[in-house]
């Protein structure tokens, strides 16, 4: 029997992330590379361990191979513990038959046994697709002070963006009075960050009820929390004012990566007191040749740069040959960009090869019709043959020949 824990984390990492297109063809969204050396899941995992939460269940379902491999025994996050630590929780066969995780709440429901082993007072439910640094222990403190059943982390967003979020109405004490899910005309700009702190005893009861309800879609946002609200449970909003971004789309992934280059953006990854941990590649230092030009960029170890790199993120072991130009782009690990090639406003996934004199993406200023413009994406392991072109907004998931 595991020893009792005050608070454990359940990390929802099973989503397909279909809005990330070919980037999640073979990997789950939380395993998508971010920020030159991280993967998205490093953020919630590091937040947990920095917040003093040492027991994390990671719920996986879609394309789990790479994600499971990446998490391994949890050692990079100090989550290889003899009591607690990180646990991969996949759907499994039961007497009544096998069930996929039908929704976020159902995923937790199916792992009630796992949670009960630690007999926690509180469970924090996180999602594996957000970039942010947050101290969950402060949220737990708030949750206890308010004697809440559920506390939802809340971020004030720009009014024009509010309609993309689940919104909350909050009274002076911080108590949530009402919800609104992605309304056309938002009346609030207080958005839910998808970080939920529950009192486990209460949540457990609602999960059982929700599962018994055949009309439920077994989702936290749509079913469980509204049910708790309707029953008059104490729901509170915990205000957060740091950087937070949902990287669920190609555009937001691209933007969020390049936010790291913006000194005005409040996401400091150099802070030694709140490190974001990752599985390290162990590559040698990166080399910048005499003719190279590198500015406004993040460059990870193992890169070999002989060309021009501006306003871009280069992950480990990227090669940029002489005469190649990379601007406003994200180049994931192990990719080679050969000489004479131009990569602009693009995301190039892992281990791709962009051969000589090809063109990937285009600057928006150069477009005749801005509606046709978007970030170009080259899939993992793809070769763009010499002289070929990848148009803006295009997603390439097969080797590209010259047309």
């Amino acid at each position, binding site marked *: 029997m595991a020893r009792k824990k005050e608070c454990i984390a359940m990390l929802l990492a099973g989503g397909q992330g279909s809005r990330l297109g070919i980037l999640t063809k073979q990997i789950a969204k939380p395993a998508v590379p971010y920020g*030159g*050396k991280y993967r998205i899941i490093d953020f919630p995992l590091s937040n947990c361990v920095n917040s003093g939460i040492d027991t994390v269940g990671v719920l996986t379902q879609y394309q789990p191979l790479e994600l499971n491999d990446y998490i391994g025994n949890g050692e990079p996050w100090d989550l290889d513990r003899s009591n607690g630590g990180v646990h991969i929780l996949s759907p499994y066969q039961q007497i009544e038959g096998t069930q996929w995780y039908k929704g976020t709440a159902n995923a937790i429901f199916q792992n009630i046994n796992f949670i009960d082993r630690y007999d926690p007072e509180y469970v924090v439910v996180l999602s594996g697709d957000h970039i942010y640094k947050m101290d969950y222990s402060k949220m737990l403190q708030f949750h206890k002070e308010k004697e809440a059943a559920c506390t939802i982390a809340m971020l004030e967003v720009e009014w024009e963006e509010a309609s993309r979020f689940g919104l909350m109405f909050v009274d002076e004490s911080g108590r949530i009075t009402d919800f609104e899910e992605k309304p056309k005309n938002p009346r609030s700009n207080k958005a839910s960050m998808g970080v939920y702190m529950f009192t486990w005893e209460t949540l457990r009861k609602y999960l059982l009820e929700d599962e018994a309800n055949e009309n439920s879609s077994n989702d936290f946002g749509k079913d469980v929390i509204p049910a708790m609200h309707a029953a008059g449970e104490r729901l509170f909003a915990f205000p957060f004012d740091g950087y937070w971004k949902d990287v669920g789309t190609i555009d937001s992934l691209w933007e969020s990566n390049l936010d790291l280059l913006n000194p005005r953006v409040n996401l400091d990854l150099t802070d030694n007191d709140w490190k974001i941990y990752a599985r390290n590649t162990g590559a*040698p*230092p990166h*080399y910048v040749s005499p003719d190279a030009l590198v500015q406004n960029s993040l460059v*990870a170890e193992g890169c*070999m740069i002989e060309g021009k790199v501006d306003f871009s993120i280069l992950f480990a072991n990227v090669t940029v040959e002489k005469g190649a130009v990379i601007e406003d782009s994200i180049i994931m690990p192990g990719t080679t960009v050969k000489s004479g090639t131009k990569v602009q406003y693009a995301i190039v996934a892992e281990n791709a090869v962009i051969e000589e004199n090809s063109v990937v993406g285009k600057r928006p200023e150069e477009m005749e019709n801005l509606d046709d413009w978007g970030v170009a994406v080259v899939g993992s392991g793809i070769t763009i043959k010499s002289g070929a072109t990848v148009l803006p907004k295009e997603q390439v998931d097969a080797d590209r020949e010259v047309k």
Partner: protein
Amino acid sequence: MRANNIIGIIYSNAYDYSLSELTSLRAMSSVPFCSRYRFIDFPLSNFVNCGISKVGIVTKSNYQSLMDHVGNGKAWDLSRKREGLYILPPFHSGVSSENRGRLESLIGIKDFLAASKEEYVLFSDCNIICNYDLKKLFDFHTKKNADITIVYKHGTVPKLRDVMALEHGEDGKISAITTPNENDVADYSTNIILIRKSLLERLINEAVSLHFQSFTMGIIQRNVEKLNMYALECEGFFETVDSLQSYFDVSMKLLDPKNMKLLFDKEHPIYTKDRDDMPAIYGLGSSVHNSLIADGCVIDGTVENSIIFRGARIAKGAHVKNCIIMQNSYISENVKLDCIITDKNVVVKPNNNLAGALTYPVYIGKGITI
């Protein structure tokens, strides 16, 4: 020869005196090198890459930073239930003196050797920067049915005490071992030596009973004629550090991508302790040419022909040329540095102008503010 039948022994303090600037606060083994490594990463990784799973590190003095660096050996996969990494601190047997040599260190680890069930012992020093496939050494040793095999390098002998010059035939059989003069060109021993454990134990006992003081004399040289000793030439990038100047020169050799490829062979990686830094940040107006940069650096100034370690910062307007800037050093605005080696945590305040020469790099000690 099974690699897991070999114990690797690393002398962590060998030749400390030759690099006195960098070793005044640390052992030779933990001297920082090439942006993110320490000297000991090279022998440790070479051992591990060929399958050795038991490594003893013989320490003598100043080994705090070494212990901090290697920890439980996790980074080299040496944190194991069976075998793994052993730090062997000095053992005072009552007869030991201040100036402990290799032989005395060996006497100190006699019990460790006796308790090990491995059949062979492989020695290495730390001031050798190489990525060497030791399997070749094992095969050679077996094929020649050798008692002792010594890896040598042909060239000008390093300026170190007790260097052995090997005279050998084409088949590698050593006929004589001499002490070379300074600046001689010879086939000199790199101190990578493979020997059967039981033989080593016998030779140690003999050397002790005959009151020999030195390993080279008491174990090796004395037995050239009696034993089957062979010499094997090293390959690839293989450099010995014997002074601050050679530390600087060997570092700078890595600015040639050909040498980088040899030393950091993807099939035989060099492992080191992780620091979990974010990737290097290049600011607006930064200009970097012919340099090696580690994670965690923030570069806003100009860097040329230099090696920058993890967490170092080069501020706007600073110009760093032909330099080695170690961990967390801060080079402020409008500083000009040429041929300078800064140790860890050095701060150079704004508008300073410091220069050495390519043939005389200037060293700035750990934690100094200028």
